[in-house]
């Protein structure tokens, strides 16, 4: 059986494990055995804040070595790894999970999902991995699923790592504006928020306080199997 090397970043592992479980089950469903990259973090959180990320990146590179490509379950981590510089870290080619799964995903998923969802294209998906169209492609293969875009779709949700705690008022205001545009993406309301970035989802869920369910795209696709 073919195998795939998956990296589940620290915060997904602990705070949004349901996305990683779904990603693994979907990979297995299209015939892959899943091996994990045995590292906690890609270094993004440190590098974005200006902290020294070399040790963490070196650890990641060592854990990821000896494979053709690494599939990363987070657009922002994938973006960081794709642009990571520094002579120490030889990281195999990195592919964001949606870009990998779309190669093997069924043309139609077996289960219908009668649901109106709004797509939050994260900043990383829009500008770093640039694969929002891939996300749309995957979601379009689920019958019954209606996907809408919010107004000001390209605006950030306000998370930004330590930005969220160093500029809490600004981060909350950005989050609230984003939440309002997501929730009003359809005149009759939407029934869920979907994204390929769990970090945005963590922020949006904290802002929305459970008013709408938030899903990683893998969770939604898994429930269509």
């Amino acid at each position: 059986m073919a195998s795939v090397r998956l990296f589940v970043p620290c915060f997904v592992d602990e705070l949004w494990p349901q996305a990683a479980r779904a990603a693994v089950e979907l990979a297995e469903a299209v015939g892959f055995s899943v091996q994990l990259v045995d590292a906690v973090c890609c270094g993004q959180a440190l590098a974005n804040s200006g902290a020294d990320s070399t040790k963490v990146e070196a650890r990641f590179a060592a854990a990821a070595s000896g494979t053709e490509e690494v599939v990363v379950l987070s657009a922002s981590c994938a973006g960081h790894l794709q642009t990571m510089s520094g002579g120490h870290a030889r990281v195999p080619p990195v592919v964001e999970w949606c870009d990998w799964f779309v190669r093997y995903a069924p043309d139609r998923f077996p289960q219908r999902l009668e649901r109106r969802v709004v797509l939050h294209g994260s900043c990383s998906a829009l500008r770093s991995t640039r694969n929002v169209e891939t996300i749309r492609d995957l979601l379009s293969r689920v019958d019954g699923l209606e996907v809408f875009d919010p107004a000001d779709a390209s605006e950030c949700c306000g998370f930004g790592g330590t930005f969220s705690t160093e500029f809490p008022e600004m981060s909350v205001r950005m989050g609230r504006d984003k939440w309002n545009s997501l929730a009003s993406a359809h005149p009759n309301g939407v029934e869920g928020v979907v994204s390929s970035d769990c970090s945005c989802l963590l922020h949006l869920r904290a802002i929305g306080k459970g008013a709408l369910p938030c899903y990683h795209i893998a969770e939604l696709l898994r429930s269509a199997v």
Partner: protein
Amino acid sequence: MTDIARRMAAVLAREDFVDRHLAALRYKKGHRDATIASIRDWDARRERARAQKQAVRDDQERWIAMWIARARAAGTIVHEAATAADANRIVYEICAQQGATSIAKSKSMTTEECGLNHYLADRGVVVTDTDLGERIVQLFGEAPSHLVMPAIHRSRREIGELFAREGLCEPGEEDPVRLTQAARRALRSLFLSADIGMSGGNFLVAETGSLVVIENEANSLLGTSLTDTHIAVVGIEKIVPRLADLATFLTVLAPSSTGQRLTTYSTHYTGPQPRSAAELAAGAIERRLHVILLDNGRRALLGTPAEEGLGCIRCGACLNVCPVYRRSGGHAYAWTYMGPIGAVLAPGLGGGAHDDMPKASSLCGACNDVCPVKIDIAGHIHEWRGVLVKAGRAKHGLPPLAGTMLANKRLWRFGIGAAKALGPISGFFARRNAALRRWQAGGLRDLPPLPAQSFSRWFERRRVDQRQGASELRLTRGSGPRARPTSETQRARDDLMQRFVSRLEEAGGNYARLAELAAVVPDHAVATEEARRLLSAQGLERRLAPIDKLELDGVDVLVASARLAIAEKGACLVDFADLGSRAQILLCETLVLLVPSDGLVADLDEVYARIDPNALPPCLTFVTGPSKTADIEQTLVFGAHGPRQLVVVRLD
């Protein structure tokens, strides 16, 4: 908490301000997107602009020396200022030499950077900012809050109250049109009496020694046309190699900035502006052009994360899309250059006082998407964070052991395990921990639940279960990624003239056929010599009175000639050659420009291809529609300082 975070928090408490500011900038962004959608080679132009700026930086001293030599050859007096203090002193010395006490100054962020107004005021020289937005913030006693829309933080009501206090209008006036007219009336007498005209500079063309200034209101052209002395303070980074490069820079600048195709006036000054024979006969003295080339820390930016920021052409697009700037306004940054590009420049140019600016970003990258010279703004903000923390100039804001824990799976698991085990008292922890408290922001954000079982534990356990024969899902593989059908934009290949007319109208101008001339030109209209000649060559019997060569204020309709009409931009090229006084085409109420029949070109590239850089007239300007401003709540008002109406007539 950093000072900048505190200042931003204070702004965010004023929700009505934030709502209005955010809406204004989203509206601006919409304009930009709409214009850019119709520019065929947008990305190629951006890339070319980036490469040209890079090429100048790679050989900076050579290009600076070339510009200085060519500018001097054209008669420009060039000064080099190492610091802001030097630049201010040079300006003052010029004033003192001439006994000048009043300056009409158009928009210039560089003189803001130098604090020139205050410096001169302390020495008895009054500087009046003549750009409407700049005038508003000057009267408020504030700094501009945006690179191109200085008063965007002020509402029409606040501006009306200010103007009433200043005696410019009746109390209670809030109409942007009437407020603009009030400012125009007040400033016109000032233009006519100022001793010196000052400007900034958008581009310095090394090949020709030219200074290029772009503006919408005509205040810059007026200030430099009505005085004997023009002083421009320009950063050394404004140099572009060749005249023809302007086709690229001008094409990317205005759409990024205001959503216009071309700013209303794009003026190329090559040497001092000559006096007409009539002016000399009336005793006018020859004009002088001083350009002060400012370093003020710019050379030292090479090799730092701010280097690429030197390529900035000050369009303000990054401000308009930045989710932080949109909500904070420019004053919260407390520095001349605000927003994303400000954060790139601040640690290099801010003298150590603005090292917290790179923190004021979620690194969303929206700025990179719109930058017309493709500066990796978010990337450089990211770079600065590392550089500043390493140098001890900033703190990274993460827990002290974060790096160690994240590099070591056992430590990480131990830490997380402890947090889960302490579940019952984690509420206590959350209240005490500063970062978690800030996350909750007084109850506005929930803490994330910490699921009992992490993904990796689930994965390990499941592997054991699977060996015992658990079965799972099956999906049929599909045919791979599908390309979404991209909508083919059907671009109508309309003929050039049609395009010119529609773009002219877009810029607020009007087009008239020769046959309609009588209808658009009233009997009391006056015309320049060249316009009269062109009309008589057409066999037109209309007898338009010649304009008094020294007439300035008070002309209603003036018919003058243009050299070229530029279809893609709806603009006309004017060289001032047929004017007794250059300001005449700016001071009339309605300007009618006659374009010769062979004067229609497709775009700026063709214009520059037709101009010999070695025989550049002292002044060329592209006129794109009537003078205009949108400095009061984005309301477009024609006739900011110059003509309220522009009519272009093409001769058969």
